[in-house]
């Protein structure tokens, strides 16, 4: 509802905005809440919250009570216009950075040396000097491929947690 009201703001809005008297605002626990934006606003006090809440989220019908008039921004601006401009910037930037360059090649060492001795293996389990344990190295590669937190937790390491070997 809030977003809908926000978008319906008149582009030719007056420079002065009618807002509720903050003294008549309901207690915070009783304020209608329907999302993080309102929760955030709930932490703001005074005229600002009245202006923002009433004007931007459309709570006028819920506020009731005597109304007063607060000043608009010193330099008037069109909130909706700013919203659209900011949104367009973010979308255009995201589009500009939407780049697919394809999968990048490695140097082939990881497949050339079938005992994985040509690749990084520090902290993995090793069978001998310079020779990673295959199951350990593959558990690292599996986690890197899946990206799952649990798979990283299950990597077979030489001495988990950096403890000294028994």
């Amino acid at each position, binding site marked *: 509802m809030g977003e809908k009201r926000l978008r319906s703001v008149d582009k030719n809005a007056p420079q002065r905005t009618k807002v509720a008297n903050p003294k008549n605002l309901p207690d915070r626990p009783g304020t209608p809440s329907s999302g993080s934006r309102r929760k955030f606003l709930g932490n703001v006090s005074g005229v600002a919250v009245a202006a923002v809440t009433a004007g931007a989220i459309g709570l006028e019908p819920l506020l009731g009570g005597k109304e007063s008039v607060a000043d608009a921004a010193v330099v008037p601006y069109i909130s909706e216009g700013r919203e659209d401009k900011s949104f367009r910037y973010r979308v255009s930037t995201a589009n500009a950075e939407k780049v697919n*360059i394809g999968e990048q090649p490695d140097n082939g060492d990881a497949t050339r040396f079938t005992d994985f001795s*040509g690749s990084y293996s*520090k902290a993995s389990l090793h069978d001998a000097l310079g020779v990673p344990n295959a199951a350990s190295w593959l558990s690292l590669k599996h986690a890197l491929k899946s990206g799952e937190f649990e798979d990283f937790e299950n990597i077979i390491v030489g001495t988990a947690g950096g403890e000294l070997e028994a």
Partner: protein
Amino acid sequence: MDLEGLDSHATVIPPAPSVTSNITAAEEVEHYWGALLADVSFTEYPTNSLVAQAVADMNRLSFLNSSQNFEYPFPVTPGNLFRGQFVPGDGNVQGPYLSQFMVHPTFFGAQPISQQYQTFLPVGGGGGDFMTSVSEYQQIQNGGASVGQLAFDPTFRFIRNGRDLAAYTHVDVLYQGYFTAFLVLAGIGTPPNPGNPYIGSRTEKAFCTLGGPDGAGTIAEMATRALKGAWFHKWIKDLRMRPEEYGALVQANLTKSTPAPQAAGALHKDVLNSAVLPIIHQNFGSFLLPQAFPEGSPTHPCYPTGHGTVGGACTTVLKFFFDGSQKIRPLLTHAGRDVVMPSTDGLSLNSYTGSDRDNLDINGELNKLAYNISFGHGIHAGIHFRSSTYWSILLGEQIALSMLRDRAKSNNEPFTISITKFDGTTAVITNQ
């Protein structure tokens, strides 16, 4: 993922050099020499006999002698040993070894920054190298706790040698060196980039955009973006081994350990024939690569380096905010200073009297700073091959440019800012 700049998977650097290549062999040889020379002050390089042996040995390496050599100043001399290069003869090989931004005291607000650091004690003076026995190496390689302990020098010093640089990079906040450079640049009155639209304005002044707070914040902001890019290549694309792991392959090859690692039998002969290996074995009793840190490298792959990627990104930011074409000596002298270099003991700063002191410019000293810090972590600490540094700095530049260009579109003020990239070409950031 991130909300600004290129996605990590859309950043591009070549595949890491193979473990079998002559470039990796050359880089490992350089690491061995770096370990042996860690306690030799940069000021002593021209006269040190071990430096002369390193220079002669490295000049025999096939990669350095080839047309493929993009990253080593060649021929190697005592004056350019362990220095970086993007373009032959660039700022990396001019002036003192250390960038002016790592030595000049400055202020962080009202707080003085001396540029003197806590360093490690030298070998023979209470300090040591690490992971030089097979048992110690294997324990750490398996993820075990480190065996040795660092010994700290109770006297704070200006950075004077490779071990000092390694100590700096053991605990630095990754953008620290570049933030300090920002303070030095501002402190000596470096003009803003000529494309800054506020230059000459009678009514406006750069502040939260294109001004000091923007620059200071952007430097720090770049660090995490740079790391995300680096981590993609480290873990998904390459998984390049660490120099210490390569040293284990050298050890396995030369001692014929069993079962033999397949890669040990495929190492390039340049490393096996290097004059450095007998010295390493004589000093340490193995062919493992001595490490400056008890734990050796951190537990993530070598290529590219986190330090280097952050360095490339942050340096690019500094070029965006400041006029990189300015000669640095006039700025320093105007501020009552001069081009300086740490004394041999690191207790004072001496004027640098080299004939090229008037040629040093901001861009060159920034490029040198990125290499200084990344080589401190790499060549001098023993945990990153040179090519990992080279490509990481270029990766950082790529990431920073994409972010700066994204952000330019958010600025209200129209501007076109040009910077000189590491390769000497010009990059333009504009919203016009």
